[in-house]
């Protein structure tokens, strides 16, 4: 175990390098630039490659390219850059090219407030690229978790052959905390073909829905195509069943592995009347607020979403049936609250406390809201 004081952005680099990322393509943007700068410093010594691209569209394309070439690949950006990456994130989904995209969220929309935090991209992370597509989105609440979730993101990307988005924010990215780094981390490599090139079907899912991936340049000739394709990688033409099969497999390979993908953390869930649902940096405030509320005799709990997408609907629904109210705390105009409302399906009340002025959502504000809920229930 080594103990270090790192920022969230640095922890992200540490996690990526230890889980085998050897390619980074990126473009400067506040508050994510330190990730690129740190990668530029450290990758060459590890035999890896850092490229500063001409923009984010190119960064994401280069990441997909490096992934096809067999490297574990990553990029990092924020707001406007995340928008520019969206088409190529969709490409990575369709090509099934493993890769990690870190979005250190800042206040938007557009250029917005570059140095101020927000959680305004939770829906963009889910639906930013067009078409029906699955998404894995993880969101850390500490520097330590920035490290751990980056490792997890890289491993999930490889294991399930999909882009994984790590949704950090300006607070977590720049926060410095003490972290104990383990001597080693679990490292997962993408499945590679065992069959001879002649028998390789690049998009045949196999039992767990994840096709083996042949690195370009290893004798396997295959189409890595963004066009709707059949198991051989050829365009489906008029074969509607093949098109439907592809979309279903792209989704099911992730949804069938929910136990590996969907992470949450609950505190006092068994013994609560009201549960605060929070994620990322705001969950820190939420925990402080819940502790204070309990000391005032309010039966409050915390449900922290570590994975935002796939959304833990089932868990929310179970919790909602046991309690009286859910309070969703977030730094946006209320994005996840709608999803929580949908999952609770009327079983409990759903309240919202939201802040979207570039200021951190403080424990006092969440506590005030909890008191407001208590008054309403009197």
């Amino acid at each position, binding site marked *: 175990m080594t103990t270090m004081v790192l920022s969230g952005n640095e922890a992200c680099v540490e996690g990526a390098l230890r889980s085998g990322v050897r390619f980074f393509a990126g*473009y*400067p*943007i*506040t508050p994510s*630039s330190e990730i*690129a*700068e740190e990668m*530029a*410093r450290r990758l*060459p010594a590890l035999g890896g490659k*850092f490229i*500063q691209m*001409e*923009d984010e569209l190119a960064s994401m394309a280069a990441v997909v390219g490096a992934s096809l070439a067999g490297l574990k690949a990553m990029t990092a950006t924020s707001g*406007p850059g995340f928008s*520019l990456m969206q088409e190529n994130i969709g490409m990575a989904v369709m090509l099934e090219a493993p890769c990690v995209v870190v979005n250190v969220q800042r206040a938007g929309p*557009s*250029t917005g407030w570059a140095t101020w935090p927000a959680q305004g991209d939770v829906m963009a992370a889910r639906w930013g690229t067009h078409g029906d597509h699955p998404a894995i989105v993880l969101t850390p609440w500490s520097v330590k978790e920035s490290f751990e979730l980056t490792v997890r993101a890289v491993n999930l990307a490889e294991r399930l052959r999909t882009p994984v988005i790590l949704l950090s924010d300006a607070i977590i990215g720049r926060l410095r905390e003490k972290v104990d780094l383990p001597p080693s981390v679990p490292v997962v490599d993408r499945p590679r073909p065992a069959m001879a090139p002649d028998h390789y079907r690049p998009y045949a899912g196999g039992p767990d829905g994840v096709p083996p991936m042949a690195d370009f340049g290893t004798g396997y000739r295959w189409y890595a195509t963004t066009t709707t394709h059949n198991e051989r990688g050829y365009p489906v033409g008029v074969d509607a069943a093949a098109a439907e099969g592809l979309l279903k497999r792209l989704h099911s390979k992730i949804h069938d592995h929910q136990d590996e993908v969907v992470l949450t953390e609950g505190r006092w869930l068994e013994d609560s009347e009201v549960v605060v649902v929070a994620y990322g940096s705001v969950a820190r405030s939420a925990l402080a607020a819940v502790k204070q509320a309990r000391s005032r005799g309010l039966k409050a709990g915390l449900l922290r979403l570590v994975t935002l997408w796939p959304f833990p609907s089932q868990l929310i629904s179970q919790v909602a049936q046991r309690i009286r109210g859910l309070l969703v705390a977030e730094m946006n105009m209320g994005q996840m609250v709608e999803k929580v409302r949908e999952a609770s399906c009327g079983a409990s009340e759903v309240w919202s406390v939201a802040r979207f002025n570039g200021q951190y959502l403080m424990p006092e504000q969440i506590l005030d809201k909890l008191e407001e809920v208590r008054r309403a229930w009197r």
Partner: protein
Amino acid sequence: MKLKEVSKEELYRCSYGCAGCASVLALRLTLKVLGENSVFVVPAGCISTVSAYYPQAPFFVPMTVMAFAATAAALSGISAGFKRRGREDIHVVGFAGDGGTADIGIQALSGAIDCGYKFIYICYDNEAYMNTGIQRSGLTPYGATTTTTPGRCFENRPKKDMLRIVADHGIPYAATACISYPLDFMRKVEKASKINGPTYIQVLVPCPTGWGFAPDRAIELGRMAVESGMWNLLEFENGEFHTTYTPRHKRPVAEYFEAQTRFRQLSPEQVEAIQREIDSRGAPGSS
């Protein structure tokens, strides 16, 4: 244009630029030439940042902060709109950094020159992405360190020759300038403003923060850049390149490098190689 003809009116003033910022100065001088009948498109970068802190509003003409990639495309839109409204008398000006021009913005610039609407595109070239903390751009010169090309890891790539790139589009007028030669720069802006089509001016603006020199030396640094041959004052007109200023005394490039911190990691051999490359250069525009 003569010194006494330069307007005393300040249409850009009181910005949040660093002390000694030459980018801000380039904008001030541009507005002295063009006057208040101008509209500006500015992408993300130092200028949009240092001009956008309330209550300071340094632009005394309308301006829009555009998406980083899109300056020149927006110029086409505004210019086409003015044409439709019969207001071609208004100067439509883009003012973008080197990253915003030569990297993320180059596609929009290429497209806009091809579209052919009347605009003046000014690239204020401080040779890196300064606003986000000094990262390398396509216009960072060979040998300069940045935060993404730290120390000896500088990119083994030359500075992109944007003048040639825009010239090869068949642009009616393009020029390079340097803030240390203000009349030359302003004369080029004036010339561009009289051309009925797309124009491009790239002005070298030494940046104390990013290059590593004292804030009172920006003009001196610009002069050294030109006198050492690291930067040339050129024009492209009627399909031909010509030099608008040739320094009387040539300066060794080593002097220019020593005056700032970003070239510190270069070995004497590397400096010599750069000097040889400069000495062997032919006439402007020749390959």
